[in-house]
């Protein structure tokens, strides 16, 4: 027992760790089940059967059914609201299912540099269109870099690039470097635009990843409306500058909403008692007295409002209520910050802005934006320049709104809301207050996104319907269970005690693989399940090699202990060499494969390591314990 103490500790620790990482997956599955149980769909069907809908027009019928559905869904919604934090937490930590298993869209987007060059040009005329046509046909034929071809075409014709791009005084080299800079950063702009929209579209767990220099992959689980997604990804970005509503007005409206939610009719009477007693109320009491302010937290120092990520859905529902709509002025628009501003105790908070519906200015007037370090204050700043028309408007707007805040809004998400310090006469503005250089870079990208196009083409689009995903999961589970049962049965019959031990190790092996996948937030795909099933065969192979050796050693008349010793040590080189090679191939597949193939490679690699551990270490410890307990024979069949 003593010599194995370390191994036993290791095994127990591995099991504990695997269970720890798998718990959120289990938790999330049971929450989902509960939510489906509580949801109104089944109740709705029952109700409609017992209460047939009267003759009415289709649209009216739909509204009627929608409202019924909403009423029946109340239980589910309430349960979700009550447990929102732990539901979201579990979802974040569970093993994710790949798009092939849960359904959804996988889209690869590529920045179209040709189109970008076309869109960026100003004063386009006949000559320009001819050049562009020539460039397009050359690029399509030879696959050359569009920018280089463009430069060559201009040189050939002896036309200066500055006729269409940049400032008229710039020489060709300067324009070229500007264009190539824009081409290089186009993919970042496109990604920021898409990320922003996808975040607002409300997909759970979207993924946006850069691939190479000009492409990025967008994965949207559970989404299947292709037309809508295409619009979402390819539409032109809209950048706007919107004035924030005055704080005093906003607070009054918030107060009115709070009163409605709390059920207080007399707003004036309610107002007087809040300030006095708020500070010594418990959280639960506060939430009851001030339902709105427990969601929209207004900072007493800055007056800024924040909303927890988990409360966003609830807030949307509140703002859509007709009695609440009644007290909201018609020029109010509610917007969130694009990214969470504060993270407190694992909960993300978004800034909540109330702006003028009408934009003061749109981003098309911006000519450039650059993130730099301000030499005097040594802090990151963003320099923004505008064209002459924009500069005139900007001077008027800033002049009229000194000390007020203007939100920079890209596709309805606020990226920054700086305070206007003074009138900006020439369109050249400096934005300060960024926490670090990364923030400044994102803001610069966003400002440019409003003005400079980053047109994208969809080069790959995969859409898996939800029913196919369910089929795939069922197929994967059926074949996995069938394969596992056959192997377990065979090993038990053929190698008796040894086989049962190997079977036990195999089951732990599955636990380990799933645990590792959960720990690395890996995604389980159908090929991944195939990889896992294949691992069963590999795991068994290690035990077969060992047991065949032990059998051989036993025929030479060795003691049980010596035979086991020799069996394990002699089989080791073969097991080691063959598994190293499998690991290599797994790594190569991971490197060159995409999506589903990577999923397969990952489970294969994890499976090899886990199966070596369970086949060599765990079974050995079990046999050692048996021998120490006085067993003189162990049946290896």
């Amino acid at each position: 027992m003593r010599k194995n103490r370390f191994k036993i500790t290791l095994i127990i620790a591995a099991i504990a760790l695997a269970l720890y990482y798998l718990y959120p997956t289990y938790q999330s599955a049971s929450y989902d089940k509960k939510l489906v149980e509580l949801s109104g769909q089944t109740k709705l069907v029952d109700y409609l059967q017992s209460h047939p809908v009267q003759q009415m027009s289709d649209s009216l019928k739909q509204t009627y059914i929608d409202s019924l559905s909403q009423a029946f869904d109340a239980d589910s919604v309430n349960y979700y609201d009550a447990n929102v934090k732990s539901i979201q937490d579990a979802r974040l930590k569970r093993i994710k299912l790949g798009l092939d298993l849960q359904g959804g869209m996988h889209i690869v987007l590529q920045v179209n540099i040709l189109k970008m060059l076309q869109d960026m040009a100003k004063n386009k005329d006949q000559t320009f269109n001819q050049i562009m046509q020539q460039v397009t046909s050359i690029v399509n034929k030879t696959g050359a870099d569009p920018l280089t071809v463009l430069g060559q075409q201009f040189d050939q014709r002896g036309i200066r690039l500055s006729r269409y791009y940049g400032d008229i005084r710039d020489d060709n080299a300067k324009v070229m470097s500007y264009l190539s800079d824009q081409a290089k950063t186009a993919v970042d702009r496109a990604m920021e635009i898409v990320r922003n929209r996808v975040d607002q579209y409300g997909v759970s767990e979207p993924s946006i990843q850069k691939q190479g220099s000009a492409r990025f992959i967008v994965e949207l689980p559970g989404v299947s409306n292709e037309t809508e997604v295409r619009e979402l990804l390819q539409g032109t970005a809209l950048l706007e500058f919107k004035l924030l509503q005055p704080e005093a007005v906003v607070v009054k409206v918030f107060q009115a909403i709070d009163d409605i939610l709390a059920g207080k009719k007399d707003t004036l009477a309610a107002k007087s008692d809040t300030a006095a007693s708020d500070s010594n109320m418990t959280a639960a009491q506060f939430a009851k007295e001030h339902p709105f302010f427990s969601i929209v937290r207004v900072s007493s120092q800055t007056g800024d409002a924040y909303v927890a990520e988990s409360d966003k859905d609830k807030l949307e529902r509140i703002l859509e209520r007709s009695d609440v709509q009644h007290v909201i002025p018609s020029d109010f628009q509610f917007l969130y910050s694009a990214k969470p501003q504060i993270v407190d105790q694992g909960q993300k908070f978004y800034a909540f802005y109330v702006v003028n519906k009408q934009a003061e200015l749109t981003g098309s007037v911006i000519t450039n934006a650059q993130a730099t370090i301000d030499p005097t204050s040594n802090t990151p700043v963003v320099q923004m320049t505008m064209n002459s028309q924009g500069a005139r408007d900007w001077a008027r707007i800033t002049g009229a709104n000194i000390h007020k805040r203007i939100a920079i809004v890209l596709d309805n998400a606020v990226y920054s809301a700086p305070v206007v310090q003074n009138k900006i006469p020439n369109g050249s503005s400096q934005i300060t207050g960024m926490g670090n250089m990364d923030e400044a870079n994102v803001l610069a990208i966003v400002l440019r996104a409003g003005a400079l196009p980053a047109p994208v083409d969809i080069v790959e689009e995969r859409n898996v319907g939800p029913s196919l995903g369910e089929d795939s999961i069922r197929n994967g589970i059926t074949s996995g269970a069938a394969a596992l049962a056959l192997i377990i049965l065979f090993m038990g019959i053929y190698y008796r005690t040894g086989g049962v031990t190997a079977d036990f190790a195999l089951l732990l092996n599955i636990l380990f693989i799933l645990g590792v996948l959960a720990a690395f937030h890996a995604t389980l795909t159908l090929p991944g399940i195939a990889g896992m099933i294949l691992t069963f065969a590999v795991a068994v192979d290690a035990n077969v090699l060992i047991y065949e050796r032990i059998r051989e050693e036993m025929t030479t008349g060795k003691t049980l202990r010596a035979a086991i010793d020799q069996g394990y040590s002699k089989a080791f080189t073969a097991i080691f060499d063959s598994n190293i090679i499998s690991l290599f191939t797994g790594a190569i597949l991971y490197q060159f494969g995409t999506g589903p193939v990577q999923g397969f490679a990952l489970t294969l690699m994890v499976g090899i390591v886990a199966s070596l551990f369970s086949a060599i270490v765990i079974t050995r410890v079990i046999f050692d314990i048996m021998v120490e307990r006085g067993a003189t024979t162990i049946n290896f069949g």
Partner: protein
Amino acid sequence: MRIFPRTNVDFIGKRHLWYVVSGSLILIGLITIAIRGLNYGIDFVGGTELTLQFTPALHIGEVRSSLNKIGHGDAEIKTFGAANQLLIRVKASEQTANTSEQIISDLKSSFPNTKIQLLEDNKIGPEIGQELRRDAVMAIFYGLLAILVYVSFRFQFIYAVGAVLALFHDVLITLGAVAIFGWIVPWLNIEIDQTMVAAFLTLVAYSMNDTVVIFDRIRENLKIYKGENLIRVMNRSINDTLSRTIITSGTAFIVLLVLLIFGGEVTRGFAFAMLVGVVTGTYSSIYVASSIVVDYNVYIKKVDLRLPQTQSPVLEVEKPYEVAAKRA
């Protein structure tokens, strides 16, 4: 329980016969590929592919004549999985951004009484297909290279050559089988896509695994029986590991058969290729990898490995405890 008691089969002696068998199989495969071509999935050629479920089922002919109206009459249409599921494929050169929506709305208007459900929809641009094909070739190339380097490092270079030739053999035979089955049994929907490439690399790893186990035993036995005839040692080693070889291949075969039958359409190509690969991988460890090492010694190094009539081609070990003594 023992399925295979201690055997004494002269594997290596029959190697020339099996070279002919392997060669013919590869040739048949290559001829099929030359005539029929390989069945590439849209991953590699690009195009639009959608799988639809019709309730009640529609005939392929009905669907085709409907698609003819919108200019996709020459699309590939075949049943996929269940009888009421059809796969419709439009070539990359004929696809537009919303080909799949056009097809669905066309079918919906032609068959108003049929419920049409979209199961899957893939659209791959031709440039992506090209890149994926290049990546697949690179992956297999690097896989083989890594194996060559590792095996020559762990064994001798000629063993590595034998192992890699065995892998080529397995890949070619499996490729041939994929071409033949894709042609003769079209409803199996076996075609070369990304998962198939994964299957090829996995079968390469599997075949290698099997070869290494035999080589490992040869390495060990050569140390024990120094100066013994190579053919006798090889036969002994193959016989020693035969039981393990059959059991492991057997379990892998069963697992893949289960996957082929119950795994559904998506993993079918994978399971099929692996199934063929497990058989040829097991066989090639003996008749390609080991045999080439023998023939290298016979023909290149001119080692006389002929055995006298009185000697068995398989090294016999009469008294097990003598072996034990030698091994210790």
